[in-house]
């Protein structure tokens, strides 16, 4: 049983996005064996030390610990519970039958019975808040509600005043028990299910078209973007040096072994140095694309752990450097400022490219990935393909992202097909997942 308590707690942690490996679970069991359950504060310190490995995980751990162990009867009070169950099991009912509980229900007995009923109903599988009532029903069933209802009907049938009163008492009792079961199930949902629900919502959010997002989703989106950024950071913050074992670096070897009379004790191998990633983002912030740009930049600027060099330019009619604004101000406010100040004129890709050439051409170099985000609708102005070609020649890679589907490319004033030959990739982005994939791919090129 003590083991079960810990296993269930770890299960709850996992559902709340705290990753607990089997090894850690074993460590936790050993640590608890050492510390014991008696001192709750000590138990908290111990489990948090063994199971939670980052500030966010620690926070989740503490929250769950309170939830979980506040309802969990301490396993040491186990022996009396077992006696009780052996007594009542002869009646064929579950331990702690509802009727008994109502008659001589002291608090701990009820709590124990609820706990057991919860286990029987498989409460730790609960995932959604809508399941609370269902699980409460199941718990009532395993508590032996049928016997109580039978008794109740019989009391009614007696048609005496006493019987009536007894029946009403039972109805009251049933009501109370049911609400307690609900309460119990709800708490279980918060322990085991809330994390899962959140994860589920995030999954949905990741697949939702960026243009269809609601204002109320923005907060959650920010959290999601942080998570994605972290994932990318972990993946790409890998070593930057690559050893080319097999190719001797003669010069280095000679220098290193000069002290040994030129006898090569210490061999030096050739190394290729990897480029540091640099991303230059050129974003159309006119009405049609601005929403996607918002999330793209949000993701991009969350990545500064892996990409120290980010420069970003926004344009509609003219192009401006917005890197400073984004880095210093609060992100949402900065974005609003940019959209309001730059995004209001009619889109002109040609002019914006020439602005880029005039003022910021040095931002483009051979380790740069140039990412253009725009629909390529230039109001029939000159697209300045010559400038775009020149830019493409200066940089490592050119990626063009557009919110429009491929069938729309080239329709009306869209110039995408004419820009396309100069891009390494041209892709439609609709969801945050698309953005993640693109950035992932772009960063992999620096491996």
């Amino acid at each position: 049983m003590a083991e079960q308590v810990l296993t269930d707690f770890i299960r709850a942690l996992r559902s709340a996005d705290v990753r607990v490996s089997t090894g850690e679970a074993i460590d936790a069991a050993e640590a608890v064996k050492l510390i014991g359950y008696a001192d709750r504060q000590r138990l908290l310190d111990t489990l948090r030390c063994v199971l939670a490995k980052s500030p966010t995980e620690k926070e989740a751990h503490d929250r769950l610990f309170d939830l979980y162990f506040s309802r969990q009867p301490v396993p040491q009070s186990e022996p009396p519970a077992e006696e009780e169950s052996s007594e009542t099991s002869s009646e064929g009912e579950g331990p702690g039958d509802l009727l008994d509980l109502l008659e001589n229900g002291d608090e701990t007995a009820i709590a124990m019975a609820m706990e057991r009923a919860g286990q029987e109903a498989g409460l730790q599988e609960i995932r959604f808040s809508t399941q609370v009532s269902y699980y409460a029903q199941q718990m009532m069933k395993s508590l032996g509600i049928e016997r109580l209802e039978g008794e109740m009907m019989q009391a009614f049938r007696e048609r005496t005043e006493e019987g009536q009163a007894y029946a009403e008492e039972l109805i009251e009792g049933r009501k109370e028990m049911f609400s307690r079961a609900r309460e119990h199930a709800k708490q279980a949902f918060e322990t085991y299910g809330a994390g899962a629900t959140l994860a589920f919502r995030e999954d949905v959010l990741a697949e939702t078209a960026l243009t269809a997002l609601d204002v109320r989703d923005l907060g959650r989106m920010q959290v999601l973007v942080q998570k994605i950024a972290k994932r990318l950071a972990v993946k790409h913050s890998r070593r930057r040096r690559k050893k080319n074992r097999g190719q001797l670096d003669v010069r280095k070897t000679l220098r290193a072994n000069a002290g040994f009379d030129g006898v090569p004790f210490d061999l030096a191998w050739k190394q290729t140095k990897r480029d540091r990633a640099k991303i230059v983002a050129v974003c159309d912030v006119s009405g049609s694309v601005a929403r996607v740009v918002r999330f793209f930049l949000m993701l991009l600027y969350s990545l500064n752990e892996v990409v120290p060099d980010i420069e970003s330019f926004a344009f509609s009619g003219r192009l401006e450097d917005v890197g400073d604004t984004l880095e210093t101000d609060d992100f949402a406010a900065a974005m609003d400022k940019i959209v309001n100040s730059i995004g209001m004129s009619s889109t002109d890709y040609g002019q914006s490219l020439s602005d880029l050439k005039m003022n910021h051409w040095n931002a483009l170099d051979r380790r740069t990935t140039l990412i253009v985000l725009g629909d390529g609708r230039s109001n029939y102005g000159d697209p300045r393909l010559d400038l775009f070609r020149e830019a493409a020649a200066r940089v490592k890679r050119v990626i063009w992202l557009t919110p429009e589907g491929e069938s729309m490319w080239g329709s009306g004033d869209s110039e995408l097909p004419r820009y396309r030959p100069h891009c390494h990739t041209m892709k439609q982005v609709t969801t945050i997942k698309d953005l993640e994939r693109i950035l992932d791919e772009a960063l992999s090129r620096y491996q």
Partner: protein
Amino acid sequence: MTKTGYEPLTSIDAITAGLASVGYISTREISTAIYLAHNLRKPILIEGPAGVGKTDLAASMARYLDVSLNRLQCYEGLDEGKALYEWKYGKQLLYTQLLKEKLGEVMDGAGTLNAAFDKLTSFEDLFYSETFLEPRPLLTAMKQDRGSVLLIDEIDKSDEEFEAYLLEVLSDYQVTVPEIGTIRAQVPPLVILTSNNIRELGDALKRRCLHLHIDFPEAEREQAIVRARVPDVSDALLKQLVEFVQGLRDLDIRKRPSISETVDWARTLLLMHATKLDEEMVRSTLNVLLKHESDIQAVDKDVRTLARADASAT
């Protein structure tokens, strides 16, 4: 069996008391982590902002247990040659030169090339023996009979390869030197890793360690720490200065003052015979706490309110 140095680690409270006896004010969490680390034989990974006493904990443990402290400072490009062991090439070379003639004598008897070769192979181990082995911190820590404290400082500054390599060493407390064989720690060291979160550590390493997050101390604990280091400071001043530093940490500055800077400041104030904080005194000594010009300027306008808040609090 020889006594190990870990015997005092009998309970969490004993650890807290023991650390206090060497001047380290522990918390419940810190002591619990040490207790678990000892009993589960697991390394502790300590994270937290710079200057909260992560490194100091290791040093204090070594002093408390009276065992040696082996410190490995990590940096980019650190490899096993500098962390674990190295062959003393120079000495090997010197010995070969010196023994050349002796070698000739020994070889003299061998008539054929084969016989000479056989003879030579029987001597080879001479040069790859412990005499020529230069132990680095990891190996030194393993070889201590009474146990030791192994501090792997700022692990986040090392490369990924080294981190992976460390995993192997820390999981079994043994190292393999190809020429000699496996060296296993008789008494596993108490391992403390620290990280300032410059880069995200690998999951595997985190999973294998106990994790302890130390943040800036609360006012009460910081007072106790300063009191332990600067016993002469008066109660009123102590309370004021700690509160001031705590207020400073809440401001938006580049580098928040560390505990050691609080201690330095307390010493400075004591030297200047201050009995209580006033604005002028704070302004003239602020450079002890803040090391960036921009921070000093940023704080400048808040000094008055912070110092006054303290005055009213006392």
